[in-house]
């Protein structure tokens, strides 16, 4: 079954790839659900971005008609109407929700129905600790600390074909994140250029050293060092073919000179190299805005600006690869409805996330956000979690990567999907 589908799909890809320099969105969509990637052919890729520190979803995508929110946030609330004394109102998405003005880059994606927002997303575990909430979200088991694998690692395992490449799962971080812990191969890379055994000005020496290292790691008694050593040398061999130093993004895309911009740029390079990457992970920091988070300008505005501009640069750069991609953001929880005494917000519950791609049920704010009257809030203070993060993650994995074994991907979960993908 799988191999036949794989064969058909691979053939189709090659054909259109040559003829048109890319695959039209409508064609890939038609077969997306039955698609299994073939070896060394272009594959579907899911790119996840973890916003560490807990993004204030109510400021990113504001229910601006909500009077309770306005009252709870005397200095943080923004309006979608012009003429309120501010130069930059929210971007009105649907008469009820407004996108932060610093995320203007996202607007066209939303209007083109290629970006969906889920509001009120979060974890059923009510912890307000960054560490726990991130741990639970990345392990995918919100009530079990002991889960030794991360959900992205399990996703790699469920792709249905053996890794032909160590780059099946890639994290653009200097160490593997919790999401990628586990038995399936995954690589952490902070800089593609460093991915080799180097001895400046002494190539032969470097090659000999590499050979020795490979031997040593192959025979060490430490399982951890042995396994990682093997992965490392496999990876070197794959990357050795390309010049990553002089990368020019396509379509005049300009990546912000930020950590996230740099990560996404390298993900783009890996995709264009066809190294067989199917799951990619990057991080964005600075969301823990307890103190002076700002409104139209300030820390939060800068953060969402970087987030949206980085993602849109990546999207633009990917050009003809766009049909292969789904980009999804996530954050451990949201922040208090009420602003705190220090111009910021404290740890809360529900937040929102963004999903971009041609297969996304876009142009909609999914999920449920009730009026933010105190009686509707969790513990009388936080935006209620109305959509389990696993519902959204599993739907994206299913519709985009054809991973439909939810029992393995998210054990302990048997909820419903909400239709964020078409």
């Amino acid at each position, binding site marked *: 079954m799988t191999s036949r589908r794989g064969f058909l799909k691979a053939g189709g890809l090659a054909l259109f790839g040559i003829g048109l320099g890319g695959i039209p969105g409508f064609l890939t969509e038609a077969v997306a659900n039955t698609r299994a990637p073939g070896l060394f052919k272009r594959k579907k890729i899911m790119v996840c971005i973890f916003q560490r520190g807990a993004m204030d979803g109510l400021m990113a995508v504001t229910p601006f008609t909500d009077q309770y929110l306005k009252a709870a946030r*005397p200095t943080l609330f923004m309006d979608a109407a012009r003429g309120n004394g501010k130069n930059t109102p929210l971007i009105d998405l649907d008469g009820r929700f407004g996108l932060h003005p610093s995320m203007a880059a996202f607007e066209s994606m939303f209007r083109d129905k290629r970006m969906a927002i889920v509001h009120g997303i979060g974890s059923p575990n009510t912890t307000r600790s960054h560490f726990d909430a991130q741990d639970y979200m990345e392990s995918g088991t919100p009530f079990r600390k002991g889960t030794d694998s991360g959900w992205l690692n399990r996703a790699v395992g469920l792709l249905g074909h053996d890794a032909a490449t160590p780059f099946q799962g890639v994290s653009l971080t200097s160490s593997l994140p919790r999401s990628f812990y586990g038995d399936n191969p995954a690589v952490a890379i902070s800089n593609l250029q460093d991915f080799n055994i180097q001895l400046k000005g002494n190539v032969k020496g470097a090659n000999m050293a590499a050979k020795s290292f490979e031997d040593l790691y192959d025979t060490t008694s430490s399982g951890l060092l042995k396994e990682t050593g093997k992965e490392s040398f496999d990876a070197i061999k794959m990357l050795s073919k390309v010049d990553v130093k002089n990368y020019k993004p396509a379509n005049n895309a300009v990546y912000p000179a930020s950590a996230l911009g740099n990560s996404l740029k390298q993900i783009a390079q890996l995709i264009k190299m066809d190294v067989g990457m199917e799951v990619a992970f990057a991080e964005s*920091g600075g969301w823990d805005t307890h103190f002076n988070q700002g409104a139209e300008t300030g820390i939060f505005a800068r953060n969402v600006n970087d987030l949206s501009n980085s993602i849109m640069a990546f999207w633009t750069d990917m050009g003809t690869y766009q049909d292969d991609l789904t980009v999804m953001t996530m954050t451990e929880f949201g922040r208090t409805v009420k602003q705190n005494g220090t111009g910021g917000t404290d740890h809360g519950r529900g937040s929102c996330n963004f999903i971009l791609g041609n297969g996304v049920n876009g142009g909609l704010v999914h999920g449920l956000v009730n009026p933010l009257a105190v009686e509707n809030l969790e513990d009388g203070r936080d935006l209620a979690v109305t959509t389990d993060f696993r519902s959204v993650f599993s739907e994206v994995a299913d519709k985009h990567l054809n991973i439909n074994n939810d029992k393995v991907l998210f054990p302990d979960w048997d909820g419903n999907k909400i239709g964020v993908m078409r």
Partner: protein
Amino acid sequence: MKTPVKVFYSFLFLLGVTVLFSSFQKEKPAAIKFVFPYKQAGLTERQAAAHLISRFTYGSRTGEGDVDAVLKIGLEKWFQQQLDGKIKDDSLNTLLHKFDAINLSNTEVENQYPRPGLAVRMAIKDGVINKDSVNKANGKEYRKQVQDYMESKGYKPQQELFRQFFNQKILRSAYTNNQLHELLTDFWFNHFNVSLTKNQSASFIPAYERDVIRPNVTGKFETLLLATAKSPAMLMYLDNFSSSGQQTAVSEGSMQMNDGMMLNGKAAAKAIARNRAKALTLKNAPAKKKQGGLNENYAREVMELHTLGVDGGYTQSDVTQAARVLTGWTIAPMGENGYGSSMKNLMDRVGDANLEKRGFVHDGDFLFVPTRHDNGEKLVLGKRFPANRGYDEGVELLSMLAHHPSTAKFIAKKLATRFVNDNPATALVDKMAKTFLKTDGDIKQVMITMVSSPEFWAPDALREKTKSPFELAISAVRSLDAQINQPYQLYVWINKMGQKMYFYQAPTGFPDRGQYWINTGALLNRMNFGLALASERIPGIKVNLSAMNGHHEPESAAAALVTYSKLIMPERNLTETVKRLTPMLNDPELMNKVETAAAKAAPPEMKNSMNSTGEELMMAKADQDASKVANKGYGKKASKVVMANGNNTMLAQVVGVIIGSPEFQRK
């Protein structure tokens, strides 16, 4: 009858002599009362010494012959000396002398190394820079203006402060004779993590490590906890500096939204209704002047991460109540341009003489402000904190947390994870926790219990820990007796290997397990680090491989391999390593190849990392300049020390591979 009497008298006499004698010998340390059970685990004394060195130092120093030195002192006595941490450090102190910023107080730092934003604000205030030009198009000119302004005022860039801070840590770790104190400083800093990623707390971090952590690493846990709670770095990092409560009647004042969930049924509904009414009336009111409010961040993390542990048995209500206890704990004002001008005004109004009378507590950089304190009654972990106790109730709270059985277990497990293995046995943790509770949280005693336990010497502990990138780098320079002229270059490598020192953003600190450190990208960088270090391609890090072996040239390549493996990794079974590396030596054309390559070699770039920031480059250059100054006495030759020329001998390559080998990653 006579004999017993005689015995009795002579006993008295002896006792008298002993008392007399010991009164003259006050300096003499107490006798060692513990024994390490390594023989039961089947280890020789040499192997035991090597294990101690690998766990309680940053690695053996070849030149010092560390294993022999430990044997000479005696294992237990050596450990006691390391716990006491009073060995002289003259040569290290000489090295540290050139860093003029590392002994500055927080106030001095605030006034000499203004945060980037502050310098700009002052420049605007002084009319040097136009407000509208900030963040405008011509960045270059604008930056120059700021720079000129800073120079004219005698202000220095903050990066210089941090460069010196990183450098001192690297030099201390590499060269101090009190190795265990340095390891514990690292451990407790990571336990009470604060991060340079948070700008507002960054400038307080050098003093935090120096004054809050380092002096307390082997004392009582409670002392450490209280010192961190009162430090500007922690107060700022976890936001408690800004947390305040209403100072009003006990029953009304504490009815904040956060406490709503604490109350039962009707009362909660009422409180919520009241809050809502209040919130709605605020709707069109102009933003009130910044006045503070409750912030739970520190209260939560002090329980979850510093004391009880996440499963330590506390609830959200305990967190909120503890946060109320700690309201009013904040940072004292720091000089003219430093932090806290509003507090300064407040204190001036009250007057120095009246501070204590009014319930203020001013202790160094710490300030308790009674008017910001929620003076209502609180209930934390079942303990009642009566109203109006001010500063003292916070101290009581922290003391209660420091002595809690969950804390004993949590700290014991964390220490065992750091020093024994990634998954320490429950029996070991229980023993250590018991000592913790029995000794009022005496860290020294807990450490002694740990090393006196068979679990420390068991086969599943030996070589089972993976070095962190920092530990790898420091152990490598120690094992090669490297001379560190530009410590910042090591900082850059440690960062590349996956550990950005002082920049771990979360209050959890770096995870302490091999799995976290070892992954594909990081592992390759470890190998590259070994090669770069041994071949002298790291600028400012000088290695003399010949001196390492007492200037004896090994008879053959094979002999060199064996000799240097043993020098770098004493008391390890190296059969496999040597066997695997031998083919490397058997290439007949090896020397030719290497030399040809060397002739063609371009001078190594100072930085080649694509994602290195301009800041890093600047700091590296500053480091280089500092090194040049330090070497000035040697004339022109000195610049050779500064810039690595690269050593392409086969020996350098072998040593590089040993440093990057799997065996050397373990400790």
